[in-house]
């Protein structure tokens, strides 16, 4: 499956591109970030949510600072993905605040919420590429929607981000998502999530359904994103090993509550029985 992934050295000249991208992100952070030393760029404060009688979240509080990677761990069906949907305002909480860059996205007006959404890029579990559009149109989609860039500039940007996720633009641009392997689809989805250069990236189960080798490559890609683009990453996953590789912070969700939070090392060292059991 991953054998077809065109891995290997990035395009010549892509290093220059990455440097440029880093500069740009840094500049953006300076304009938007404010002055405080350790601002929590994404933060949940005592969030409650229920579907009918089923309480999914019962007073969840967590946060991640700029440049950090938060991995939210938990078994299936505990509402991990729900947290991401709250951050994007695809859902509204019953109670509590969902702060994006210090503003409660669940409480602001619709246009403001849309502006906050643009600060985030989301990689869905099944990649969620638009299957009627080819790779180019998929990746270019956010740019056509939200920027006034000319066709040429958009083409350059799309090729740049595809190179960044280790795909050969010339090869994949005209393909439809159905012609791609799972790993490639995930990379295209990441490219689409970062093409408009958001400071926050959200991943829903980025490695589920992928083989171990591809999983590793995606993990490396996430590390590369943080290292080179200095974005803040929130990952929802059930894969503890993967989390251990990429996280700077972890949080374990059980029965609608965060039962553990700390660095991967702390999680590794904890004596809590459930955490240990979950860790395996």
């Amino acid at each position, binding site marked *: 499956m991953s054998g077809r992934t065109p891995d290997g050295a990035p395009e010549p000249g892509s290093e220059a591109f990455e440097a440029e991208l880093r500069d740009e992100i840094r500049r953006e952070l300076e304009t938007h970030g404010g002055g405080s030393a350790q601002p929590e760029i994404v933060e949940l404060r005592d969030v409650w949510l229920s579907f009918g009688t089923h309480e999914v979240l019962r007073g969840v509080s967590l946060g991640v600072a700029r440049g950090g990677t938060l991995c939210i761990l938990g078994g299936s069906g505990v509402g991990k993905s729900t947290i991401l949907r709250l951050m994007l305002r695809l859902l509204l909480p019953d109670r509590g605040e969902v702060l994006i860059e210090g503003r409660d996205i669940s409480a602001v007006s619709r246009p403001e919420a849309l502006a906050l959404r643009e600060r985030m890029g989301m990689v869905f579990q099944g990649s969620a590429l638009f299957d009627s*559009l080819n790779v180019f*149109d998929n990746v*270019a*989609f956010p740019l*056509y929607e939200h920027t006034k860039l*000319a*066709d040429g500039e*958009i083409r350059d940007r799309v090729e740049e981000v595809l190179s960044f996720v280790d795909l050969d633009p010339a090869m994949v641009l005209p393909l439809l998502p159905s012609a791609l392997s799972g790993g490639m689809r995930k990379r295209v989805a990441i490219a689409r999530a970062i093409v408009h250069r958001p400071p926050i990236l959200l991943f829903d189960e980025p490695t589920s359904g992928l083989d171990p080798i591809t999983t590793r490559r995606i993990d490396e890609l996430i590390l590369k994103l943080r290292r080179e683009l200095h974005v803040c990453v929130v990952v929802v996953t059930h894969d503890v090993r993967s989390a251990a590789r990429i996280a700077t912070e972890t949080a374990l969700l059980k029965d609608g509550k965060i039962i553990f939070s700390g660095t991967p090392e702390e999680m590794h060292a904890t004596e809590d029985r459930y955490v240990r059991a979950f860790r395996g």
Partner: protein
Amino acid sequence: MRRSEPITWDQMRVGFVLIVSLVLLALCVLFVGRIGDVFGERYQLVALMESASGLRPGAPVQVAGRGVGQVERVEFIAPEERGDSEAAVAVWLGVNVDIREQIRRGSRARVRTQGLLGDRLIDIEPGSPDSAILVPGDTIGTAPALSYDELLGQAADAVLGLTQLSNDLSATLARVSSGEGSLGRLLVDEALYDGLVDLNENLAAVLGPIADGEGSFARLLEDEEFYDRLVSSTARFDTVTAALAAGEGTLGRLLASDSLYRAVASSATRANAILGLIENGEGAVGQLIGDETLYEEFLKVVVDLNAFLTEVRANPGKFIPPIRVF
């Protein structure tokens, strides 16, 4: 997706289909409009009628059977505005201006039905050329609708009368052929036939000698002098009748006179009345005809005539007087 999109294949297809459908639609509107005559300029005429007979707005208006417009609306006339006329509805007709010359003062509008389903329409008779052309808003004359129902009613009456007549006739003929009444017996009785045969024979015997040039009557037929006299007397007769035709002389005045005619007419009427009485078997003559004795008398006359002719044959000179003309 791209900012500057070239025209794509699907755009062309969509455009093509849109154009085709619009052309079809336009053609439809055009043809229907032409049939419905909606494009020409129209003017209004009003027809006042006793009954709209089911006319509806949109019903065709024809002049001499050709469509020229349609009924625009049918309105009741307020009872106080009706006055003496029987008209209860005003039918507004929209008529093409092109055929204005056809509809004149003497034109008559009438409701007709057309086709199997009995569609109602207004048919207008063109007016005669010497009457005035109707102007917009004028009231056009109407003719009573030829209603199917009325027509059928009248026909039914006629058929009933005919049936009655033929029943009477056959009853009468039945009586005649069974030999009842004097007419019946005349036709059926053999004695009468025999008498008539004898009479015929006797007549032949009398006329035979005349044809053979025997006797004075025969000579008369061959005499030239007699012919000349006949011609001159005919000429004189002509002059007399000419004078009569000119109303000259007593007789002429008599013929030309109106009072004579009236007198004759009245006597004819009276004679008719008398004949009527006779038919009904009233009075002496009537009884005579109805009576069987007439037949017996008639038979007797025939027999006597027969005997008389036999005698004439035996001795003609005794009966034929010298013939004189004038």
